[in-house]
């Protein structure tokens, strides 16, 4: 609990008014620039949020309400609550982690690497990536799947997997993304990141964490992977 220890360096009112949402805009901007680099203030804000939450419904009121309602409904409530809780726990236990696997925006297509050797394949790849850029992922997926069966390449596997993922078919995305994530390939880091998303979507958090940790060489992706890894760790610890 660190809510006031930060007062040594920040005005006494700033943290509680930030937490309550009553800090003026210019003060908010100034405090947030400081908050980004100050661990003590970050903790003070979290502590303040906990105090705010605890005070909005006082523990005494909460306990009193619980006692009244439980006494009245106890004979019926307990078996029903136990059953409902079991269903709820089973249904929602993995939900925060799965949500982290959501992909709303497909990665931008980088044209040059997507080329196969035959001209027929070239035309199919061109059509597929035109569809991909237009957001027609079903068509892109069908065409890329056809190309992958004839002339597989890391890039084809990558965009095939991403097309499946953005369509919501995480299971279908796993195999091509795994193929694209082989070490030493051009799309390896990107494939690790999106494969992790697909694995989160199907509830395989351990495998997802391993793939996020494998994103190393590309700085932009490494930061995104690190942020996603932190979110996964936080969601799993709840």
């Amino acid at each position: 609990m660190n809510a006031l220890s930060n007062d040594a360096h920040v005005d006494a009112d700033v943290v509680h008014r930030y937490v309550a949402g009553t800090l003026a805009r210019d003060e908010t901007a100034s405090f947030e620039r400081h908050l980004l680099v100050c661990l003590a203030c970050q903790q003070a804000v979290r502590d303040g949020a906990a105090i705010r939450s605890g005070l909005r419904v006082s523990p005494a009121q909460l306990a009193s309400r619980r006692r009244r309602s439980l006494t009245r409904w106890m004979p019926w409530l307990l078996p029903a609550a136990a059953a409902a809780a079991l269903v709820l726990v089973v249904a929602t236990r993995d939900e925060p982690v799965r949500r982290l696997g959501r992909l709303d925006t497909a990665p931008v297509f980088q044209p040059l690497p997507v080329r196969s050797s035959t001209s027929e394949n070239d035309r199919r790849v061109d059509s597929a990536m035109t569809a991909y850029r237009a957001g027609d992922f079903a068509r892109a997926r069908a065409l890329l799947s056809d190309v992958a069966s004839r002339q597989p390449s890391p890039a084809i596997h990558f965009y095939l997997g991403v097309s499946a993922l953005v369509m919501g078919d995480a299971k279908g995305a796993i195999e091509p993304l795994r193929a694209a994530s082989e070490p030493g390939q051009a799309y390896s880091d990107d494939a690790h990141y999106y494969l992790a998303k697909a694995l989160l979507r199907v509830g395989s958090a351990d495998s997802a964490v391993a793939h996020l940790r494998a994103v190393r060489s590309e700085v932009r992706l490494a930061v995104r992977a690190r942020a996603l890894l932190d979110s996964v760790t936080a969601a799993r610890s709840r």
Partner: protein
Amino acid sequence: MDALARVGAADRRSSELVTLVPGLEIIVTRALGPGDDARDAVQEVLARALAAIEQDRPIHGPFAAFVHGIAVHVIADALRARDRHRVSEAEPDSLPAVIPDALERLIDAQEQEAVNRALALLDPDERDLLRRCYVDGEKTAAIADDVGEPASRIRKRKSRVLQRLRGLLEGGRSTERHTFGACPTRKA
């Protein structure tokens, strides 16, 4: 700056960017609420900051202030996209409305339970003071005016209440003020 120095500066800023993520999560969650939107916004801020680093764009002033500026714009974009709030085009650097209760979702359930238990052990007037601060968001000067006491006395009282709360949370082992590291950038 020669090429090697530029690469070194870019590496340092990339490393610094990672350390800003926890603070970014607080800022973005407070503005957008918890959930996918906030996570996506944090990712977007990081991606834009990295793009600036990679393109070697000039960054004037502290790097954290630069990243905060990106965050303000990303938050405004997200709110516009949601059509929940109208953000004035004339004030791109101003923060829009906030969702303070969203910050509560950052608190671990066990920690919240411990805080609730400790709050229940405070005296009613102690809880009332904290409520005026953390729920109503009043300035201590305004509270002082209201109760007819000097602001310095209210500030000290608030400090004592928080110290007591801290003591209760630590099971009475210590009522000493936490240090939690002195802040290097701001002084009272």
